[in-house]
């Protein structure tokens, strides 16, 4: 096989290098990840010994567990693959270069799809294979079937994501595909987490009769008999040779069929995406009068920029979606009659506010314009803080109002703690800016893990405060002043002195 410049392997290496570099993984992180891999093997040891001494599970239950695990892996892989596919096909700025080169266009598609499969498979393999290795050594080598199984799932997930991306592109165009794919990926990821919660949901141990009835209904629909074809993938994953071979052939065949067979359509879509002018005529606004007031125009500018970037909005909302499984898990636990799931709103408030504040401050497209303007840094920051908090308020208004209808004290608690969490997290971002392009939103935590951790802790702190308020404990009074003061402590003097924004960064 050729490996020189222009060959498929060479192109694959280029693709993987791009994906690696855009992941923001540094050498230090890679070393830490290596240690984590070793640690995962060690963690798997007691599990493996426990499995060895366990009585074999009934076949039906094993099939259910394996299918659940495979479904989880597939959904998570497809979630990642969908984003990676759309990025590689519609969003990467190199398509004109690639298509104008003497490389065969079909090879480009095949290699890009292969790189996506390797990336998504690699991510899941890093989590799953340490356990498979140890179980294979300690219990039975049949566990090593995880290797081909993961490869098959990765190919299948990539093929599915290619089809979905192409379908979306044809239906709604390349611009909107990025946005919808993002939403879809978030929903797939959430569905994956919810699959892991399925046993809890089906147990129906709640006191509520309606919940019990729903559990019975779900059990009837989801769990077919032990001889059903539904369990065929599970039997493949448990190492039955024929289903395994069939699964591998099917996955590889589907992948090749999609990547090769639909290459022409992909190329047309890529070319369309490359040629799509992102500018488009807007609604006429010339009759609208200019508004005045420096802070007010600043605030409006921030809100416009946020509202006009649906791709970014979906990325932000995706973070909130990923908290849904936590809400599902916490549903059965509560303080009095109030399920703890409501407290997830506090985490969401902090998370959203941090994200919007990052966009407003660190993602500022024209910092020099603001610095060169006769506007005080404090005014700029105030406008940006307001702009960051307003969308959070709008997003959470309805659920908090609903909570207030369920239990007025719950509504008051959530309103107070969501506001607090939003204010703390937004202030943290405002006072610790790290300028980047808005499009690099996903990498905003790069090189500032302490801020990311502090943001998560502030959100959690406000959630604990909310729990304290719901339990009417006086300890809840300690939280607010502390959580509001922490982000501002070390930048407060500069801010109050009205230092220019440039130096505040």
């Amino acid at each position: 096989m050729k490996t020189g410049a222009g060959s498929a392997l060479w192109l694959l290496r280029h693709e993987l290098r791009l994906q690696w570099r855009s992941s923001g993984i540094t050498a230090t992180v890679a070393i830490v990840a290596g240690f984590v891999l070793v640690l995962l093997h060690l963690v798997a040891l007691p599990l493996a010994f426990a499995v060895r001494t366990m009585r074999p599970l009934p076949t039906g239950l094993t099939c259910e567990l394996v299918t659940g695990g495979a479904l989880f892996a597939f959904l998570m892989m497809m979630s990642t693959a969908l984003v990676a596919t759309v990025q590689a096909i519609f969003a990467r700025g190199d398509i004109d270069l690639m298509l104008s080169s003497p490389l065969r266009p079909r090879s480009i598609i095949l290699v890009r799809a292969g790189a996506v499969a390797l990336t998504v498979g690699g991510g899941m393999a890093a989590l799953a294979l340490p356990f498979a290795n140890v179980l294979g050594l300690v219990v039975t080598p049949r566990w090593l079937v995880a290797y081909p199984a993961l490869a098959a799932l990765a190919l299948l997930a990539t093929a599915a994501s290619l089809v979905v991306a192409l379908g979306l592109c044809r239906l709604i165009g390349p611009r909107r595909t990025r946005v919808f794919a993002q939403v879809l990926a978030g929903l797939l990821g959430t569905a994956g987490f919810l699959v892991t919660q399925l046993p809890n949901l089906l147990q129906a141990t709640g006191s509520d009769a309606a919940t019990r009835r729903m559990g019975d209904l779900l059990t009837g629909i989801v769990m077919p008999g032990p001889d059903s074809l539904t369990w065929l993938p599970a039997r493949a994953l448990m190492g039955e040779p024929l289903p395994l071979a069939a699964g591998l052939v099917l996955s590889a065949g589907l992948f090749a069929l999609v990547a090769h067979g639909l290459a022409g359509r992909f190329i047309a879509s890529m070319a369309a995406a490359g040629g799509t002018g992102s500018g488009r005529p807007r609604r006429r606004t010339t009759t609208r009068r200019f508004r005045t007031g420096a802070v007010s125009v600043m605030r409006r500018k921030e809100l416009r920029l946020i509202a006009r970037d649906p791709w970014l909005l979906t990325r932000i909302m995706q973070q909130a979606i990923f908290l849904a499984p936590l809400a599902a898990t916490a549903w059965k636990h509560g303080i009095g009659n109030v399920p703890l799931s409501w407290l997830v709103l506090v985490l969401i408030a902090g998370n959203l506010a941090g994200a919007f504040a990052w966009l407003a401050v660190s993602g500022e497209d024209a910092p020099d314009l603001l610095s060169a303007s006769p506007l005080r840094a404090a005014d700029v920051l105030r406008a940006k803080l307001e702009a960051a908090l307003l969308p959070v308020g709008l997003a959470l208004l309805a659920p908090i109002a609903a909570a207030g209808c369920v239990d007025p004290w719950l509504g008051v608690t959530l309103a107070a703690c969501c506001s607090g969490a939003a204010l703390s997290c937004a202030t943290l971002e405002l006072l610790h800016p790290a300028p980047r392009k808005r499009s690099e939103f996903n990498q905003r935590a790069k090189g500032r893990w302490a801020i990311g951790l502090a943001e998560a802790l502030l959100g959690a702190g406000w959630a604990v405060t909310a729990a304290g308020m719901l339990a009417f404990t006086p300890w809840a009074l300690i939280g607010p002043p502390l959580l509001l003061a922490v982000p501002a402590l070390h930048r407060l003097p500069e801010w109050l002195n009205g230092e220019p924004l440039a130096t505040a960064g």
Partner: protein
Amino acid sequence: MAQPHMALQVRGLSKRYAIPAVNDLDLAIGAGEFYGLLGPNGAGKTTTLRMIVGLLTPDAGSIEIFGVDARANPMAAKQMIAWLPDEPMLYDKLTPLEYLEFVAGLWRMDAATAQRRAHELLEQLELWPHRDERCEGFSRGMKQKAALAGALIHDPRLLVLDEPLSGLDAAIAREVKDLLLERARGGCTIILTTHVLDVAERLVDRIGIIRSGELLAEGSLDDLRRRSGRRESTLEDIFLQLVGTGRGGGEPAAWELAA
């Protein structure tokens, strides 16, 4: 104390990174003057301009804009300045009209005046038909024109431009040059840096040539020619003679500022 007719008075301005970027620089630019600051790459032109407009804090020296101490009273100084860097400071998701509304708001213009001026500028720069399109779809030249409109909307007394013609096609460059000349004739003081020496030769009243953060020579083109002793020299000849990178290389000319 700065003389009242001086638009910009810079004394002993210094800024050091790993090496000195600007070193004890003195500049005096009269009101209504069109001044070109020239120099090779890395000469300290942009650093100088960024200090003048308040984006960088100097290590030493003073800056006065129309008699206002820009370091002591930056807001009052900024009120009179507009800054246009080579990379347009635009928001891709805003339309030119919205961008101008935003900039006018930053400079606290009243809404009616801002709207009228926005209309005039967009018409003048031939962006009016695109007023409701987002800037993300604009060409480099259109973006630069939108940014120029933003710089001019608050009618600055001192316009500071860093490579304003970089990357523009001939037609757009001509439009921008015409607009700048019109502003200069209207009394606006303009400082620009450019690598296109022909542009400097045709546009500016006075030229300052810097290298390694130090002013090597300053004066009108005729002054510089006279000092160089070659009356038929082009600005390019003089420039290369001064910065010492012309054909034949060698050291910079000895006549420099002392002349």
